[in-house]
């Protein structure tokens, strides 16, 4: 089975984002990681490879620093990697999707995995965009997947229920937490990943149709309030939740 996994490098969830004076994100002290949802995508690809044989290719777009996220995926066990060179990761998902689709078309992949969304810009558009550009089915927020012959059955989370969808291969799968337990990169895997050459390619990116005007810090959270520490405080708590916080 020939599988591609599209990954993104994102800031660590613990990063305290600092803004520059020009209201852009200051990247200098950010610890970048492999987007956590993409880890589920990589794991699922590796599991299918173990079951059906084949190859897993990791594809990402961005500047040199993105190679470290690619290495993380290789260290988990992926076989090959492609980086589409770009000075920045585009803010418009459509631009990224265009470049990825061009690269994916070359590979004749049976399945294309990716995280259901990136934790930095949270657009969650990539599975659908790729499906549309490649003209193949795309299913996202997938928590369970079975592949048999040239058919797959995917279970996805919807509000209050699970939806079960069948389609034929090739297809795009957006991974959701719960799909699997991503493996840890072993030290052997890390050493092996070092020896794999990342295929770095140039690409023409389309123009951004979306522009980020500026970033702002979220408003500071107001401090919590302790109403009391026994059952006596419940009526007051209810009143405050109702009248002040207006959540009930």
């Amino acid at each position: 089975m020939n599988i591609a996994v599209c990954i993104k490098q994102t800031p660590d969830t613990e990063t305290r984002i600092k803004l520059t004076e020009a209201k852009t994100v200051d990247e200098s002290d950010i610890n970048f990681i492999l987007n956590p949802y993409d880890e589920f995508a990589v794991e699922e690809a590796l599991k299918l490879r173990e079951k059906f044989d084949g190859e897993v290719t990791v594809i990402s777009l961005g500047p040199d620093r993105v190679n470290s996220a690619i290495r993380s995926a290789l260290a988990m066990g992926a076989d090959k990697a492609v980086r589409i060179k770009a000075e920045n990761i585009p803010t418009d998902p459509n631009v990224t999707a265009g470049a990825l689709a061009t690269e994916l078309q070359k590979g004749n992949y049976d399945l294309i995995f990716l995280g259901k969304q990136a934790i930095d810009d949270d657009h969650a558009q990539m599975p659908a965009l790729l499906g549309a550009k490649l003209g193949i089915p795309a299913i996202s927020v997938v928590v369970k997947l079975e592949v048999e012959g040239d058919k797959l059955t995917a279970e996805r989370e919807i509000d209050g229920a699970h939806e079960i969808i069948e389609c034929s291969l090739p297809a795009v799968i957006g991974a959701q937490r719960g799909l699997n337990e991503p493996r840890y990169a072993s030290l052997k895997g890390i050493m092996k990943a070092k020896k794999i050459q990342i295929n770095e390619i140039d690409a023409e990116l389309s123009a951004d149709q979306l522009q980020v005007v500026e970033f702002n810090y979220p408003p500071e959270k107001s401090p919590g309030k302790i109403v009391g520490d026994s059952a006596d405080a419940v009526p007051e708590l209810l009143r405050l939740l109702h009248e002040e916080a207006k959540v009930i």
Partner: protein
Amino acid sequence: MSDKTKPSFSKALFSGVLLDELVFPYPEMEAEEAEDLKMMQDTFKKFAEDNIDSEKIDENSKIPDEVLNSLKELGFMGLSVPEEYGGFGLSATAYTKMFELFGGVDPSLAITLGAHQSIGYKALVLYGNEAQKKKYLPKLSSGEMLAAYCLTEPGAGSDAAGIQTRAIRDDKNGVYILNGSKIWITNGGIADFFTVFAKEEIIDKNGEKKDKISAFLVTRDMGGVTSGKEENKLGLKGSSTTEVFFEDVKVPIENLLGERGKGFKIAMNVLNNGRLGLAGGSIGALKVLLKEALGHISQRKQFKKTLSEFEMIKEKVAQITIDLFATESMIYLTSGLVDSGEVDYSLESAMCKVRATEISWIGLNECLQMVGGLGFMKEYPYQRYLRDGRINMIFEGTNEILRMFTALAGIQERGQVLRKIGTALKEPIKGYGVLTDYAAEWIKGRISTERIQDVHKSLSTAKVQFETWAKNLHFSAERALMHNGKKIIYREMIQKRLADAATDLYAMIAVISRVDSLITKKGEEKAANEINMCTIFCDQAWRRVRRNLLMVDSNNDKGMSKLSDFIVEEKKYPFEA
């Protein structure tokens, strides 16, 4: 060590020689290894977050088998095994950083991993022959075998040369027969591979029979190896500590490690090596507990202010941070020296161990103090980190022994100039089990220097403080030698002051070098916090140095000794109010 071509910075310091080329610029890890290290750290962090419950490990006095097995599979048992034997061949710097992480996550686990690879199989890596390495290292690296280091005996702790375990060579059958017992052996109950130090009778070149220590590679499956019950300890409860007994163990002669009779040197060099890992683990623990305490003091309010707004709390936070920064600077300067491969670092690694374990102990205690009564409660981690951290000042060379070593090794060079004293000095140093036969010639040709190379202007005050007090350390050491002659080996209170002064000076130069390199890289503005820490630390340090050196000449040592002798004689506190 004699195979090193350059002496240590600190030994030269005692002789009034400032080998600044050894400590500038501040060492930096190669980009490729830094990337590998980050990935290994990420793997461990993720694994720990999902699988390691330190409270439970402490409560059950056991690291779950599944945790150890997973760590074996992931490769964490082979960090210092060279790649050709199935390991990962980490540099001393990367290795120490890994142990900083382990020590922060769970000290019990750190010591289990450390006893295995910092000391358990380290002798094999350093002194093993090809056949021995091929036979055992792949299994040790994969964790199929766990290792333990067996030196200490009931009658031989700090005085390690006094061990009684005996090996009798039986050439006819090609074996040594090993008998004896070792106490407080970390991993004693779970190890299958033991580096054992034992005495054997050797005929020296004059034809005389002599007892000398040799090192042996012993495996549990040789038969006759048993472990005692698990010790009930104050801390590090998850680690295995037992007595290990050897009863008529038949150890094949090919399992003799290194040369016959050279075991003591092997034992000591292994410990020299292991001390950096322990130093790293100690500061790792403090970093984690500081983070915990910061969470509390920035939330908890008293008198309508958060605790972090009170000045006495600020002082604690700042002091812990400065001490961490300075000690970390020493540790990674030293690991950089180790990785450069040609510098004697025995003194520096001893100083790092002493300083790191003590600032960690004080810092952990201050973290507990900052959070008040909550820190005394068992459901919070403060008590556990304190209990776990206490042993660090005792094992792998007590901090007292390491101070004696630091001072005596430092003045040894000058002692040799003063003839007879040199010979007298050599004995105790050897006895303390830390080696020091370094390339003395290297210093001899050097004239004493009073200045180090230029540093960034924002560090110039710190530089002058270092230079001034480095010179004074040299003078004080000379005077101490002149006044005390051979008896200097018994003047431990003076040794302690010289050692502490030297440690502070080494810390100062490490901080200056680190911050200077940082300014070159990032610019003065972005290094503002570090410059501030350098300024404060060097100011604090030179005042300590001054006090210690003044007290080399003027002190109450005689009165203190006399009083102690009296109290010991009385067997209790005899005074009444």
